[in-house]
């Protein structure tokens, strides 16, 4: 935080120095729009920085000044001498407070209300003497111009080259004293070089580390909640670039949270998670660093943008004629905001024009991609110029080329054992690297260089590009160097094969290969490749993890692991054969239990508690054996039952339990489900039926009732043959007290006939 504060102070101080001229010019000519904009940007930047540095006084002052200036920009107020004075008083005050913060001195805030009131023209600005008592604290940092660093850097490179030249010339001189001196020089030069290099480079983390706090505070101030994720914080970037990116990034993120991400209630309505997602990522791509800020908010409403500009006096027809993309870019117009109310955070339309100006100043560009209702992705491209990259030096046809390490997946040597080999499809050579087939590109050929030997290459560099990978055949892999990459002349870049040029220690210029450019020059086409891991899984036989166990009848069986909740030891005393089936008393409840084989003679068994996520059943076994991946391919059982089929495990046959059948059976038998069809018992013998037939009826899937509640209807009605006809609407099954020879009724103790009749009705019901 202290670092940030120091930077803020230094930056504000610098801007103020630069601004003093602007202020005087504006004072002389208040209608000068350019000066007004410059001052406006200054207070806006101060306000933005105060937001996350927690400097409420500065925030208040700058916010007030910004309000007024924004009114002037919108033409609502005229910049008369009084207003100019009031604004200048605020700017002065900001300077004083900044100095006070730096010096750690207290500065009383009397008169600040007056200053702010003066902005509205209600009070005269207090004639106030600037506090001169504040002395600058000694700072331990120096701000250098990047130009100076540039000169230092190129001087350093010259020094390295001179050292190399000297070393070459002294190679024949074997005087140990000279050699020792040279070594010391080399060491010092190398160290210096590192230091000088480091003065320019910084991890982009320096930029990203302030984001979580900023996002949190901004979101909290707006009553929103935002989840920030950051990627690529270790991408290294030129210090100057980082400084130049700081404000734009802040603006974009604040805009995203304020304009993009909706309040939680709206997000719920839109079917999104309440927490907005904000993703900030940095990556290197070719000779550019790409910083991407993606939110899942409402995106940019281009109609609204157009409407605003029309309201500001632009021609509607002209704006309507623009493409969607061009209309999106209208947000970069100065003075535009689509938000109707002004907030502490943003919404004055400063920002996007400033953002674009800042980014273009460093030779970058900014792109918007908006999906209305889905979110906005802002992509900032900044050049890699002066960025140091880690590169691998490759040799092809006696020439050296560099390739960024980032794009190289691995480097392999063609091996006799076949793990890495070159195959031919027709006449096209392809590389097979550990079962992975890759297109093969010969570096020398694609560069049009003559290679001495035309045999199969021995070294392959596996290069990853968007969409896939390819193998690049090279003659040699020479070195691994940190290189300062600079853009090459257009004539050199024209082929699309190179991403830049560099001057390594050898003093010989070297070209940086563009991995994607080579792929396209070679005509490679990638359809999105699935991850190699998935590929392997797809090739292998599908398996299902299963629990192998020894069943009570001594047979080895298996059950899919997914349905096994747990395995518990159970005393056989808790297992009873009640009401036609085995039941297990466990944990205060009764669980239906399946067993294949007798429990006799055992005091304890293991019980697999199987679950389908809702219900639970037990399956008694002798012991659990192992967990294994079993092939899905299975010889099905001849008849449906508890055994689904047989699988081969290490040459053995293992019966696979069919959990579906077990649960289906249980569902058929199980009590309690209210969804079953009703079997209505009527007539004089209803009592007998309820007592004697209920189990059979329930087993057949009916719920037994002797009367219908309101709204219920019977699927089947049971009655004796001499009962009067029950109300129509349901199938009627009649029973007789005596055996009969017709089909009109079933003898009530003809169990087989009854079951068959019930089954027939059940089928009919379906």
């Amino acid at each position, binding site marked *: 935080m202290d670092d940030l504060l120091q930077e803020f102070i230094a930056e504000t101080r610098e801007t103020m120095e630069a601004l003093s001229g602007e202020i005087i010019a504006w004072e002389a000519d208040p209608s000068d729009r350019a000066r007004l904009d410059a001052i406006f940007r200054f207070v806006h930047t101060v306000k933005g920085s105060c937001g996350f540095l927690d400097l409420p006084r500065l925030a208040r002052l700058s916010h007030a000044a910004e309000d007024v200036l924004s009114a002037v920009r919108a033409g609502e107020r005229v910049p008369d001498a009084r207003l100019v004075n009031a604004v200048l008083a605020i700017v002065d005050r900001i300077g004083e407070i900044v100095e006070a913060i730096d010096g750690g001195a207290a500065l009383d805030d009397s008169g600040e209300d007056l200053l702010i009131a003066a902005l509205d023209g209600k009070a005269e600005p207090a004639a106030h003497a600037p506090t001169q008592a504040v002395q600058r604290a000694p700072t331990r940092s120096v701000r250098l111009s990047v130009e100076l660093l540039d000169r230092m850097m*190129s*001087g350093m*490179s*010259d020094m390295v*080259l001179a050292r190399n030249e000297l070393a070459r010339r002294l190679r024949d001189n074997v005087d140990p004293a000279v050699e020792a001196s040279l070594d010391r020089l080399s060491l010092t030069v190398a160290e210096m070089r590192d230091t000088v290099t480091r003065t320019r480079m910084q991890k982009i983390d320096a930029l990203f580390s302030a984001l979580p706090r900023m996002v949190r505070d901004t979101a909290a101030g707006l009553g929103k909640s935002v989840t920030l994720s950051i990627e690529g914080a270790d991408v290294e970037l030129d210090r100057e670039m980082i400084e130049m990116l700081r404000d734009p990034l802040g603006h974009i993120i604040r805009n995203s949270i304020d304009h993009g991400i909706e309040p939680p209630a709206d997000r719920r309505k839109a079917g999104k998670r309440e927490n907005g997602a904000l993703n900030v990522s940095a990556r290197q791509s070719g000779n550019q660093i790409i910083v991407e800020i993606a939110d899942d908010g409402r995106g940019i409403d281009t109609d609204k943008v157009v409407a605003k500009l029309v309201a500001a006096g632009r021609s509607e027809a002209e704006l309507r004629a623009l493409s969607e993309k061009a209309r999106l870019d209208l947000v970069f117009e100065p003075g535009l905001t689509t938000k109707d109310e002004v907030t502490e955070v943003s919404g004055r339309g400063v920002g996007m024009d400033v953002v674009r100006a800042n980014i273009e100043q460093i030779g970058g560009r900014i792109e918007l991609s908006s999906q209305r209702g889905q979110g906005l992705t802002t992509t900032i491209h900044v050049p890699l110029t002066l960025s140091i990259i880690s590169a691998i030096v490759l040799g092809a046809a006696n*020439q050296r080329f560099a390739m960024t390490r980032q794009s190289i997946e691995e480097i392999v040597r063609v091996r006799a054992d076949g793990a890495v080999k070159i195959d031919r499809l027709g006449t096209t050579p392809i590389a097979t690297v550990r079962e992975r087939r890759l297109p093969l590109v010969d570096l020398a050929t*694609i*560069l*049009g*260089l003559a290679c001495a030997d035309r045999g199969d290459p021995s070294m392959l560099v596996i290069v990853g590009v968007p969409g896939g990978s390819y193998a690049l055949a090279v003659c040699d892999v020479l070195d691994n160097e940190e290189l300062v990459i*600079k*853009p*090459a*002349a*257009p*004539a*050199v*870049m*024209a*082929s699309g*094969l*190179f991403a830049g*040029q*560099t*001057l390594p220690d050898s*003093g*010989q*210029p*070297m*070209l940086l290969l563009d991995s994607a450019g080579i792929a396209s*020059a070679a005509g490679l086409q990638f359809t999105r490749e699935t991850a190699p891991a998935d590929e392997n899984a797809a090739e292998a036989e599908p398996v299902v993890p299963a629990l192998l166990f020894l069943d009570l009848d001594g047979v080895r069986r298996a059950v899919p692991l997914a349905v096994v909740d747990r395995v518990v030891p159970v005393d056989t005393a808790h297992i009873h054969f009640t009401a036609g089936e085995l039941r297990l008393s466990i944990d205060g409840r009764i669980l239906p239990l399946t067993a294949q084989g007798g429990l006799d003679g055992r005091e304890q068994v293991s019980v697999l508690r199987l679950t389908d996520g809702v219900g639970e059943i037990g399956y008694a076994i002798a012991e659990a054996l192992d967990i294994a991946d079993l092939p899905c391919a299975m010889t099905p059982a001849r008849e449906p039952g508890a055994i689904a089929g047989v699988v081969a495990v290490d040459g053995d046959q293992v019966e696979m339990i069919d959990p579906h059948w077990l649960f289906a059976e249980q569902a058929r038998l199980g009590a309690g489900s209210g969804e079953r069809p009703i079997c209505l018992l009527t007539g004089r013998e209803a009592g007998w039926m309820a007592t004697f037939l209920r189990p059979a009826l329930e087993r057949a899937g009916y719920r037994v009732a002797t009367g219908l509640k309101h709204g219920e209807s019977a699927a089947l009605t049971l009655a004796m043959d001499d009962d009067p006809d029950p109300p129509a609407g349901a199938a009627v099954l009649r029973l007789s007290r005596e055996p009969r020879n017709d089909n009109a009724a079933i003898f009530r103790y003809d169990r087989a006939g009854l079951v068959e009749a019930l089954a027939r009705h059940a089928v009919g019901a379906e």
Partner: protein
Amino acid sequence: MADLFLIARIAGRQVAIASDQVDSVVDIGEIVPVPAADARVRGLAALRSKVMTVIDTRAVLGLPRSDEAPGRAVITIVDGHHYAILVDALDDVTPCALLPLAGGIVLAGGWRGIGCGVVELDGEPVLAIDLHAMIPGVAQAA
């Protein structure tokens, strides 16, 4: 109106180069070829810590590449890129007045693209050339 002109010799002919196009004059050392580039690009060479793109003047003129090792070059800077234009020899620096090509004179071959006028040197006409016109990939300003 007399500007300084560098009198050089390319492809055996004397030419004049406006000095405001010339950054410096150097001896070219080893040249690293650039594969797949325009034939006019001879390669890259290092001058202290700068990398320069070396332009082969003979290729610009449509002549076969000479077997001689390149020696001297005139450095010119376009859009921040350093280009080294190979020359056979450098003769002199002298103030001259640039005259337009007289009516009816049409330069032949590769010279047409680079000639931009005539200077008088000791009573002899010498072709003035535009270095930037020799550089491939640079948009020509009319």
